[in-house]
């Protein structure tokens, strides 16, 4: 009887642990959104580039991470957010993070948003600043067009006379 009871207690533990492991593989945003019911409330791993602002809210922060298809909001402690140095924008490529956290299809804490509550993050690669050099081709095109406008304007003056 005692052994059976142990077995009953141990089996669910292994089943749960197995499920957690299944979702510990990095999941892309398309899969997460498409199969949101399946992943709801589960521990998952999601990775991508930090984009926009790190929005501090008290002891927590919102960070949006784009995996190339969609961006998903990550709710994390301010201590975890401190590891983020560069966020993605026109002038920079953001840090690439791997986030481990609980996925919510419709988060009760955050107005029903689809989000992830981070438990841990790992910086896969650091972001970098992008130096946009002057595009000479575009500059030349604009100068040629300016010349054409001036010539056209002069020609129309002659036509008037």
């Amino acid at each position, binding site marked *: 009887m005692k052994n059976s009871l142990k077995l009953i207690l141990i089996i669910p533990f292994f089943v749960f642990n197995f499920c957690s492991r299944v979702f510990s593989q990095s999941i892309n945003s398309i899969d997460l*959104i498409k199969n949101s019911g399946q992943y709801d409330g589960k521990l998952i791993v999601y990775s991508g580039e930090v984009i926009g602002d790190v*929005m501090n809210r008290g002891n927590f922060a*919102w960070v949006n991470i784009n995996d190339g298809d969609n961006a998903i909001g990550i709710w994390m402690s301010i201590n975890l957010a401190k590891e983020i140095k560069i966020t993605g924008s026109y002038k920079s490529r953001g840090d690439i993070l791997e986030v481990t956290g609980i996925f919510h299809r419709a988060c009760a804490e955050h107005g029903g948003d689809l*989000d992830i509550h981070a438990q841990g993050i790992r910086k896969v690669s650091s972001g970098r600043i992008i130096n946009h050099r002057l595009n000479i081709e*575009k500059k030349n095109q604009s100068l040629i067009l300016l010349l054409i406008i001036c010539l056209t304007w002069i020609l129309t003056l002659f036509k008037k006379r």
Partner: protein
Amino acid sequence: MILKPVIQDIKIIGFYLGKILLGLALTMVIPILAGVFFKEINPAIDFIIGIEISVLLGMLLIKICHTDRDLNWMQGMIVVSLSWLFAMVLGAIPLYLSGHWKSFLDACFDSMSGFATTGLILVQNLDHMSYTHNLWRHLIMFLGGQGIMVIALSFFMRGFSGAFKIYVGEGRDEKIMPNVIHTSRFIWLVSIVYLILGTLALGITGIFNGMRPVNSFFHGVCIFMAAFDTGGFSPQSQSILYYHSRVYEIITVVFMVLGALNFKLHYHLWTGNRKEIFKNIETTTFFVTVTVIFCIVAVGLLRIGSYPSELLLFSKGFYQLISAHTTAGFQTIHPQQFLNDWNPLALTGIIMAMALGGAVCSTTGAIKMLRIGIIGKAIKEDVKRIIMPGRAIIMEKLHHINEVFLEDKIVRGALIITLFYILLYGFGALIGMFYGNPFLESLFESTSAAANVGLSCGITSAAMPTVLKITYIFQMWTGRLEFMSVFTILGLLYAAIKGK
């Protein structure tokens, strides 16, 4: 007998078109200033090229087609419809040069989507777009929402009698003031006042939400323009989900609703006639349709159990509904969630809301509340005729600023435009289904394009077939101009072939 258009017709159309293109070129100075401010040199050059092409084209049209004659109705309508097509192409030039669009057609798609205040997008890698290009995306919504003709009338044209013709050609037939140029300027006054208030409200909220001040106010001005002009673009790919803020959502709801109100109603509210909002047929119809459709959406969401509590259901359901009904197109869910987490009943509710739209003489698209109200009154009158004694005289009235008797010609006008919209929604849905998309999704996306909403359930993407892109561009253009200007072009082509 149909008369063949003569060279003089073409010259008049070309001359006024040229003037409007010069006006459009001038608006591109704003993103250049932004480019200088944010030290984004290459994006600024994209707009210099855009200005140069617009100026060159406008200058050539004015010089070649120079005339002192005024516009007639046919010419006015054609100037309007062609101006929107030219605006789409010229507005797309700096967008395409940014490298964020896969083809020039895709850039034209987003440009028309912006000018027509739709909000459907094909842009790639939006989260890395420059401030300069992002500002232009939202600015074209602001310009298109007020109307390209309204800009021309307000700032570039003075006292010519063809003004009313091009004003009407843009889908607006209500004058707020006796003079149509003063009307256009009033529309701008309202928009600028709300622009300042909206940018401040959203900017300050953004700072409290943890955004950097510069970003906060930049997003504030962009989101305001997209909300008040019921456009639906946003600077980031997640739409309003990016901000993770209920306050931000509430502010956008306020400005979406303000944008969906008739400018004539704004005028009466501003001049102290606040009771008008409770009596006006458009606002009362809007209240009724929002209530009824929300019930449909809520029942749909309750049946599928998408949200764990009633409050969350209200939050998500009501936001998407208001966004659809005002034809703004902001989303607080991912596009694919419409298909995965919403059932067909809730989705149908959103399609109904998109199809109806806001007020006439507002920034919204779709059938519009005045027409729905008129049709409702006409049905009521006919039911009364059936149940009342034969001798009874039945005259239904409606309140739209003034008390107006419901005449057959008013009902006829409302029904014709409504019918055209329904045909346009159906046409896009058929093309969508031709390419293998299911009926409901095709109808959703088609209605969103034709009603200038911008909500998407995932069909709209750079990978969709070229014909579908062109169909949606046609729907956005036709829906925004409310058919007549577009039909006039077809009439002109017919006259050119068959006329004598």
